[in-house]
């Protein structure tokens, strides 16, 4: 095999423009080329190209670094934004101008119960997929979505929706500059619940959850606003009888539980639109609407009393209380809430005064009575300042010897206009308005001072109110009076009623014992009128028992009274307690008492109560009579 070479056509090489320029520049006049110069230029080109490549590389590297840093900053910024958005309390959803979702935060998904929400979805699609809204009926669902879309775009405008799952959600839409919308959604259920609770607490009694005075007034105002001619309503004021005793003896927790139980019983007795309010302590008000007849109200009152009289079993205690009710009725279109409540209160007062466990309807005279009573209060306070209260003394006589053995101190009010007012007409008021302590001390101090002027054989008896035991300072007060007067304690006899023994018995007994230790004598007053409990006589070593004048008055005409007098004198005799009969007015009554071996007596038969100045002359007269008889 042979290869034959064939001639190859030669053309000038196509030079790069730079090379062409370099060739031109290094061309010598003779047509040759300055090789050194050409190489220098070529080398320079390589160098320039290298430099340019390095510059380009550097620029590229710098750009890559800048880009990386920017991306890194951007990623970090995005992370921060996302963290900030996801940790907002509000849900947030951003839609573009076409109404398509751009982004949401996690809170938005949580509120709507969504796992995710793809960008590009419409608001309607998102809402439609929310399981929280799906609980709604179709109509409700449409309403929620329509409301949502209609949220005004003005800045700050928002709506509040109650969702079918029980949550309260606020939705706010803000129109953005690019035509998109920003929705912020907040679950305000807790705040609304708290507000509702606060509103409830402000209008309800915390213990029983019954409406309080505020809500009662609101309901009354509502009734006034919606008054219809002929419609009547009744306001029942209700106090529990002996509630205080429960509180004092069994403690407040039991008392509170009792109030709750009472509230539960009351609620069952009235209709749903009636209002039972607890105004404080054991004080309740019941507003009965649309009253058809007085009889219906009376029947309700009786039912309430009967129901509350049924025993309560609280914390292992068998508790028996009762209730007193005052009723005020009014035509609704003439209703004045304050007047209605006041009238019910006055009727309640009357019910309580007339023996507990009953109800009274308000009558206009109750108001007049209350007015008079208020006047009395004012005058009593003035009387104390101007020494209008003075002490009179009624002698007590030993039946067998006709000897004056003592006097009972009885306060008299020398009223500048109404003359002398007996204690029965104002002591009750003193007890109600808290003046009994002052009046009691005034009488005791005066009586001790006066008694100190009498012969040692003559005692002084002073009545105590049950209320004087409340403060627990009675023994100290008595000690002060004795010290101030210098009276021998054994000459002082304090009279207490059975009623005083009934409430807080242990405290009363303790104070009585302290008084006994001081040497003071204690007598049981008005025996036979109240409980006449033998346990009272057994529980405390009384020095004397006083037979109430109501029995004495009937001696000779009423065999029952004689039996009682006989039983008491017999009891006293067998227990070694002396007895005294009060209200003796006739010789016949005295003779019967002598026959029944009563020890002593007082009453108009001997003398009405007299000023101090007349006491010693009376003693002298009696002594004279005795001597004359002897």
């Amino acid at each position, binding site marked *: 095999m042979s290869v034959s070479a064939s001639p190859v056509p030669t053309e000038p090489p196509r030079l790069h*423009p*730079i090379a062409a*320029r*370099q060739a031109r520049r290094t061309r010598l006049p003779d047509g040759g080329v300055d090789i050194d110069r050409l190489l220098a*230029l070529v080398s*320079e*080109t390589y160098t*320039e190209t290298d430099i*340019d490549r*390095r*510059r380009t590389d*550097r*620029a590229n590297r*710098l*750009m890559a670094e*800048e880009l990386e840093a*920017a991306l890194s900053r951007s990623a970090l910024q995005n992370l921060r934004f996302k963290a900030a958005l996801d940790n907002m309390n509000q849900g947030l959803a951003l839609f573009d101008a076409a109404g398509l979702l751009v982004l949401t935060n996690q809170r938005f998904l949580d509120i709507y119960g969504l796992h995710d929400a793809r960008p590009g979805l419409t608001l309607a699609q998102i809402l439609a997929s929310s399981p929280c809204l799906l609980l709604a009926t179709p109509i409700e669902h449409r309403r929620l979505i329509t409301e949502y879309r209609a949220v005004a775009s003005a800045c700050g405008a928002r709506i509040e929706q109650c969702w079918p799952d029980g949550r309260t959600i606020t939705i706010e839409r803000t129109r953005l500059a690019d035509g998109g919308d920003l929705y912020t959604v907040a679950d305000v259920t807790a705040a609304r619940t708290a507000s509702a609770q606060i509103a409830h607490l402000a209008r309800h009694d915390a213990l029983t959850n019954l409406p309080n005075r505020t809500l009662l007034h609101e309901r009354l105002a509502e009734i006034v606003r919606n008054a219809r001619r002929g419609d009547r309503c009744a306001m029942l004021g209700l106090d529990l009888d002996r509630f205080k005793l429960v509180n004092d003896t069994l403690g407040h927790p039991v008392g509170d539980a009792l109030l709750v139980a009472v509230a539960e019983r009351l609620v069952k007795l009235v209709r749903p639109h009636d209002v039972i309010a607890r105004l404080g302590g054991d004080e309740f008000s019941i507003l009965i609407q649309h009253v058809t007849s007085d009889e219906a109200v009376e029947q309700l009152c009786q039912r309430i009393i009967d129901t509350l009289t049924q025993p309560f079993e609280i914390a292992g205690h068998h508790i028996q209380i009762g209730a007193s009710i005052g009723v005020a009725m009014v035509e609704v279109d003439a209703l004045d809430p304050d007047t209605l409540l006041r009238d019910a209160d006055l009727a309640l007062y009357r019910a309580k005064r007339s023996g507990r466990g009953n109800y009274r309807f308000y009558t206009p005279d109750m108001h007049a009575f209350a007015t008079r009573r208020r006047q009395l209060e004012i005058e009593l306070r003035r009387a104390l300042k101007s020494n209008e209260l003075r002490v009179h003394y009624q002698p007590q006589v030993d039946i067998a010897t006709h000897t004056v053995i003592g006097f009972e101190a009885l306060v008299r009010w020398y009223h500048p206009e109404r003359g002398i007012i007996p204690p029965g007409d104002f002591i009750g008021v003193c007890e109600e308005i808290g003046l009994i302590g002052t009046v009691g001390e005034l009488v005791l101090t005066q009586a001790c001072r006066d008694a100190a002027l009498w012969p040692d054989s003559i005692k002084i008896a002073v009545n105590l109110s049950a209320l004087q035991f409340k403060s627990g300072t009675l023994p100290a007060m008595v000690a002060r009076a004795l010290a101030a007067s210098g009276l021998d304690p054994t000459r002082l006899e304090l009279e207490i009623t059975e009623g005083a023994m009934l409430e807080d018995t242990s405290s009363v007994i303790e104070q009585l014992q302290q008084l006994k230790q001081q040497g003071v004598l204690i007598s049981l007053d008005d025996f036979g009128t109240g409980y006449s409990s033998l346990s009272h006589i057994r529980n405390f070593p009384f020095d004397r028992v006083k037979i109430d004048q109501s029995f004495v008055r009937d001696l000779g005409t009423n065999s029952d009274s004689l039996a009682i007098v006989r039983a008491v004198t017999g009891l006293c005799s067998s227990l070694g307690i002396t007895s005294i009969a009060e209200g003796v007015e006739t010789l016949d009554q005295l003779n019967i008492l002598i026959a029944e071996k009563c020890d002593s007596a007082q009453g108009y038969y001997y003398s009405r109560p007299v000023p101090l100045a007349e006491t010693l002359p009376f003693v002298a007269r009696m002594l004279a009579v005795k001597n004359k008889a002897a």
Partner: protein
Amino acid sequence: MWSKRIDGSDASATFPATPDLVIVFGPTSRMTDQPLIEQLTSRCGNAIVIGCSSGTMVDGDGLDDDAVVALGVGFERTRLTLAVQPLPSADTSFAAGLAIGKELADDSLSAIFVLSNGLNVNGSALVAGIRSGAGDSVALSGGLAGDGARFGDTRILAGGDCLTNAVAAIGFYGTHVRLAHGSAGEWQPFGPVRTISAADGAELRRLDDEPALALYERYVGEEAADLPASGLLYPLEIWDPAKPDDRVVRTLLAIDRDHGTLTFAGDMPQGWKARLMRGIFDELIDGASTAAQHAIDRTASWGVAPSACLAISCVGRRLLMGQRTDEEIAAVSAVLGSDIALAGFYSYGEIAPQNATGVPCLHNQTMTITLIGECA
């Protein structure tokens, strides 16, 4: 009107007639060669001779770092006036410009071509001064003398004298003379947009609250050692954030390593945005072509072809492109054609009307074209 470019150092080279104006560009070493200059001016008759130094001359469609290029021009219906003012320091720039403007100002003044010392001058202030003196309607172009990468000694030739610290300008008078201009840079911004956070006049102190020099050095990398000369390769594009379409290119003139600052050939307003630029050869060459095309398009209404072209390009372009710089002149020449006498130099600052507004200003890093013609 006639124009001819000759080799100014060739004693045998002649013009076809006695010129009215001779514009000379040459290296500093040759411009200060008094015998050479005298020999040249002696051949120019009564022509106004004006010129300046440069590291590289535009000599037809090529470049020459050593040549003395002389462009002779003869007018038939155009009057010329030479004005020369001292320019001892940068802060006298406006005053010098104002004096030039006033000296040349005349109802028939049509255009001004100015050559200024390239160092210790505030080109922007100089332009503002001339416009204040001569009026805003006068077309203004020219450039700041150069000295290649040396930045050592720049010269102005005027009236046979080779001056330092001076500005010289020619006023063109009459209704027949025509001048058309074009300029383009085509440097490419790169890197993030930054904010001029501290600056004073032309001194840039901080960018994005970072010391400006440190940031700049990071970008120029190994070429930081050659600053400020290497700064010519990395100009800054700056703009008022309120006018993002109106952007200006600034060339680095000096650095202060003690204070970490950079000084540019023009104001650096605080609050403006700034972005570093770099040159990509092909883009720069296209830019030169664009400038020439813009100028030639402006001559369409003249009724005559332009006779002469003064091409003034930035020394930064020359330094960056090296041997490839020839290509931008070749590109200009290709647009103009071979009938137009083309001469020019690589400057420390170009002066020409803005393409868009026609308002004269100092350019950096551009190729600027001034075409001269005379109508019948």
